């Protein structure tokens, strides 16, 4: 099969399985940036994301035979990416501040907050937010963080996120809403501290 870098994902997978190694190179090149960015934002470390990205693509390569070509390759890839990142964080046993946000299954404090606008004088510049975003993200629960990154950084639709995480569409939407509310709350708290 004659492949070009622009061939669809599923065709590249099929070509690789038929013995065309170059097809795998095209696939990796296509998704390297996205996988690296997701990992870096999810685990909060660009340096460690390098090793993790390598591990993710190795796992993709090993499991390529199991890929169902009827489904989206991108969704499949990100389900692996998410799982590898979760495994990594579990291995590392990082103490996250996700408990502050509350258990996912229970109604958390942030759920009770109405989407309020800020009453105190609080302005945050883009530069400030860029600097602090990693810290804010690390305080979200892993599942909520994944939804935010997949939706905004990887431009995945909620339906695709639901598919790859094995959750219902409503749960994903709820995670998204709660994560945004919690982020706003964190920013607001930070601004209060700075103002004092």
């Amino acid at each position, binding site marked *: 099969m004659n492949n070009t870098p622009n061939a669809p994902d599923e065709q590249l997978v099929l070509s690789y399985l038929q013995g065309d190694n170059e097809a795998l190179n095209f696939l990796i090149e296509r998704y*390297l940036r996205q996988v690296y960015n997701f990992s870096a934002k999810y685990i909060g470390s660009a340096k460690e994301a390098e090793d993790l990205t*390598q591990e993710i693509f*190795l796992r993709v390569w090993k499991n390529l035979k199991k890929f169902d070509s009827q489904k989206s390759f991108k969704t499949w890839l990100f389900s692996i990416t998410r799982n590898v990142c979760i495994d990594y964080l579990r291995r590392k046993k990082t103490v996250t501040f996700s408990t502050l946000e509350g258990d996912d299954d229970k109604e958390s404090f942030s759920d009770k907050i109405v989407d309020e606008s800020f009453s105190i004088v609080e302005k945050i510049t883009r530069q400030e*937010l860029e600097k602090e*975003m990693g810290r804010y993200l690390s305080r979200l629960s892993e599942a909520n963080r994944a939804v935010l990154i997949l939706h905004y950084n990887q431009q995945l639709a909620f339906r695709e996120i639901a598919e790859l995480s094995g959750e219902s569409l409503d749960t994903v939407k709820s995670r998204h809403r709660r994560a945004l509310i919690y982020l706003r709350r964190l920013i607001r708290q930070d601004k209060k501290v700075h103002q004092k």
Partner: protein
Amino acid sequence: MTKQETNIKNNPDELIASVLSQDLEVPAKLLTQILSAIFWRQQLYAGLRLSGLALSSIVSSLALFFALKEVVFKMSESGAWSILSLVFSDLEVVTANWQAFSLSFLEALPIFSIILTTGAILAMLVSFRFVFRNLMQINFRPILKNRLLIKI
């Protein structure tokens, strides 16, 4: 306040989304690292498969040798060779009584040993086929190049 600075009070979600959508620069060597990691694993797995298959080829060849030996022994024990030799000594009698000849010959054949031999032949052929296929998959050039580099 510059244009880039956004007031989160007005549109916090948009700013959060915009910051989240920013991409980090991928390290230049990462792609090469990933491709070479996959390449070396491909070589390693092909090598391991090759070793296993080579071993199974040897085992099946040995099994074939003993199975053939057993067939020859059982055939002489059951008198199948003697019946078969009639074809060369008394062909006319054999052709005249070909039904009785065939039946006697079939009865004298060591069926179990023949089945074992056929199995051993098949196992050997399959092993050879996979060994050959794995040999085709292994790219020896980079391995040799690497060995040379280590020597230097």
